[in-house]
């Protein structure tokens, strides 16, 4: 579904991605693990169009989307849940959800919005109880749920998740990953980026290891879990 070939990205002249190739087959969960600063967020931003300076190919459903504007790429069915949630903290939960469906509002597709909304609230019942609350006052876990819910309102076929476990208690992380699995089972393809290697490898079928802008290992997630190098560097020995 998504095929990235030899992608390079720079901040000014400093390379952050040095020729990364990653493939995400339709219907799968693919994880990319890597330490802080490895270039995981840069890769997701390049896919979703937030970063422009790049060489290489990003093929989504066989069309090259590299260099397109972020707001155009969402419309193709790729939604990103950015690192650190990036919810609209001064707006209400409901506003955040509505804005997630911005493209459907533009197309005046009310029925679609209502359907998405009920799906999202079924997935995250806690959000439904908080619709009028200002988003910035939610707990960290609820904010992460809201960020995912907002992305889902755009009805993505490919969901990009940037460190959804960051800063959350283990119990909440488990809850969020249960949702990620559920989304995948109902047909959403998922590209997950994590420092939390164990959780990310457990949920994925295929996985990649990113180090300072380069893919150093790839394969079945279950194999990587047993790989001695991965064990030493990412799973605490």
């Amino acid at each position, binding site marked *: 579904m998504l095929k990235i070939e030899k992608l390079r990205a720079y901040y000014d002249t400093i390379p952050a991605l040095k020729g990364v190739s990653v493939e995400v087959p339709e219907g799968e969960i693919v994880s990319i693990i890597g330490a802080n600063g490895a270039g995981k967020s840069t890769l997701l931003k390049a896919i*979703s*169009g*937030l970063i422009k300076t790049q060489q290489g190919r990003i093929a989504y459903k066989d069309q090259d989307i590299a260099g397109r*504007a*972020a*707001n155009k790429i*969402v*419309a193709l069915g790729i*939604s*990103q849940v*950015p690192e650190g949630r*990036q*919810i*609209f*903290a*001064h*707006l209400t939960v409901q*506003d955040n959800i*509505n*804005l*997630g469906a*911005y*493209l459907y*509002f*533009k197309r005046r597709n009310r029925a679609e919005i209502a359907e998405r909304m009920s799906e999202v609230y079924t997935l995250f019942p806690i959000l439904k109880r908080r619709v009028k609350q200002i988003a910035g006052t939610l707990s960290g876990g609820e904010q992460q749920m809201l960020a995912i819910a*907002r*992305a889902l*309102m*755009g009805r993505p076929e490919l969901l990009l998740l940037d460190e959804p476990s960051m800063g959350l208690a283990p119990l909440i992380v488990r809850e969020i990953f249960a949702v990620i699995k559920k989304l995948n089972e109902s047909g959403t393809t998922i590209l997950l980026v994590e420092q939390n290697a164990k959780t990310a490898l457990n949920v994925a079928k295929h996985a990649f290891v990113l180090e300072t802008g380069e893919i150093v290992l790839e394969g079945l997630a279950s194999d990587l879990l047993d790989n001695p190098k991965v064990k030493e560097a990412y799973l605490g020995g």
Partner: protein
Amino acid sequence: MEKITFASQLMQYLITGLTVGSIYAMVAIGFNIIYNVTEIINFAQGEFVMLGGLIMVFLHVAAGLPLLAAFPLTIILVTLAGMLLDRLAISPIRQPSVLTLIIATIGASIIIKGIAMFIWGKDPFDLPAFSGRNPIHLMGAVIQPQYLWVGGFLIIIVILLTFFFEKTIIGKAMSACAENPDAASLVGINVKHMILLSFSLSAAIGAVAGITITPISLMEYDRGAMLAIKGFGAVVLGGLGSFPGAILGGLILGTIESFGAGLIHSGYKDAFALIVLLAVLFIRPSGLLGSVEVSKFKRF
């Protein structure tokens, strides 16, 4: 003829001050709309007011269009000027820093002023008051009917903007851009369009200010800069980015100016705004209703 007492004098200063203050409030709202989306202080904001007044004079007085046609047409033309400002001066700048963009607005204001001088010359122009010039007397003070139009239009603008930002998805999208442009583009919002829209809205509001104030204080090509300074004073007084603050700041500033001119010396009228501006920056940089966080320029 009523006797002019001190009390009626004060009443007169208050009414005049609130009227001028309403105009400052409109300019301040225009500043905030653009600031909230882009963090730019648009120093060409005052030129929209000037253009509003002079284009209205041209359409209504010189071309003889009826008020009800000239009014919306003027707003449309000034809105187009606002869009041009964004398209020609703001959006072409590559790798913009907020400071370069602010300087671009200052440059644009000088150009707009030059064009206006070329078209209209240096003389001030008058515009007929919307509903005549028979004053209403209240507690010894004289109220021009046009004062009520000014206040009325401020109220209309506030109601429309509240509806826009609270109830429409485009308004919410603008707030989203103001808060987090990257996250906004990730839900499909075209941030550049929202910036264009913010310039359009500000220009339209500036036009209304210019159209309604010209029958009271005339209008000439070089009025924009001073209006921008007054409006900016109102913004700083009320708190950068705050709409209630813009209204409060504008009304207070207008009132201070009017009382200062009446009780101290009318020659210092324009100095009061600057004194207030400096005082706020020294004492409470976040303004009356602004959050301290906002007052620290994020990108400077």
